[in-house]
């Protein structure tokens, strides 16, 4: 073969190999810092305890609760259907597989919301979407769902609706308290059959 052809081939292969080595490192795939900053300043990642309670009660299959506290604390108490991924174990084998599953909403839970938010930032850096943070954390869960406060009498009606929902959620999650507040009296809406005019062709 011609010497120049061989030389040319070698140069091409060296260049191709060089460009592969440029991108090789052991870090998992991540998004750029300025993109991460844009995601961080959106407040859309916060989800309230009422919303999460509703999703659990309705058995929403897309909800995935991830508890970022330590294992001992998780063993003492945890929300139903939540899994435990402590912050230190984020990069352990298999933990990253819980994220990025299409159709699921991952909600991070911790005592307050700071640790869950920190986990959210790191998971976002790894490029996973559909992740949320439980605002107020478990402390807020206790104050709103497990032991809801009755609103004062001059509060708007919406607060009473929320309160009656929370009382129901309290029953669901703790199995206690048989007193039903007045705000949740069963409202029976009766829909009468629409009377159609036989003459006009109805039935």
């Amino acid at each position, binding site marked *: 073969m011609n010497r120049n052809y061989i030389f040319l081939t070698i140069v091409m292969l060296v260049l191709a190999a060089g460009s592969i080595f440029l991108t090789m490192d052991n870090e998992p795939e991540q998004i750029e810092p300025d993109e991460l900053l844009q995601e961080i300043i959106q407040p859309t990642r916060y989800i309230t305890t009422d919303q999460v309670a509703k999703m659990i009660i309705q058995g929403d299959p897309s909800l995935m609760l991830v508890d970022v506290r330590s294992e001992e604390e998780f063993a003492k108490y945890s929300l139903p259907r939540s899994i435990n991924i402590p912050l230190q174990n984020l990069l352990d084998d298999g933990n990253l597989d819980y994220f990025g599953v299409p159709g699921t909403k991952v909600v991070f839970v911790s005592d307050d919301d700071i640790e869950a938010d920190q986990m959210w930032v790191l998971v976002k850096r790894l490029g996973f979407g559909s992740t949320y943070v439980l605002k107020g954390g478990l402390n807020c869960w*206790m104050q709103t769902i497990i032991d809801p406060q009755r609103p004062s009498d001059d509060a708007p009606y919406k607060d009473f609706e929320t309160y009656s929902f929370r009382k129901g959620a309290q029953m669901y999650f*703790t199995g206690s308290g048989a007193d039903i507040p007045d705000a*949740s009296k069963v409202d029976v809406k009766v829909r009468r059959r629409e009377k159609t005019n036989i003459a006009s062709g109805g039935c």
Partner: protein
Amino acid sequence: MHIHELNPWRTLIALSAFVLILIIGFLTRPKPLLTYEKTISESVKALEESDAYFYPWELENVIHEKPDNIVLFDIRDNFVFGQGHIPGAENLSASVLSREENIERMKKLRDMGVTVVLYGGDELQANGPWMLYRQVGFNNVKLLKGGYSYYKEHKDNLALTKNDDGYKTGFPRYDYAEMAAPKDGAAFHTEPESKPVPVRRREKTNVAAGGC
């Protein structure tokens, strides 16, 4: 015979020029403004460093002495900043953080060895930007514990906050298991909250018209 066999030198010159241009192209790629200095695992460890946080009682010194080596940045937006902020703080809204002039300013502050303290309405608001700054190598950035709301509550006696727990986060304030346990020996029943019940009457069809 091909031209490159007749005149090998021309081929060699063209080839070298090609490789040279490729190399120059790679080296002069525009560098992004921000790059990660910490890996994910390093970032996780860095969260536990206590000198990454700024405590409310330290604000007393900053407000009265106005030292040169500490700068307070308020990341809330301009309107809220105008309504009330920590004396001596500068407004650096979260939405303009990624602008080139602000990044350059942060780099200058880091090179001068100035400590930058970030705060928001509450600790949560500044948490994200603080983490980002730490990850891209601004290790002089600290997060104010408790945020502006805690400062506002205690601004008249900041020195006493050393003994207070109010600004601390990340610990349970209740005994969760005890609070959530079934009470009064009541059986666990999963009855959902009472909802309005729409009653639909069976549609009466006319037998004569063929219905049933």
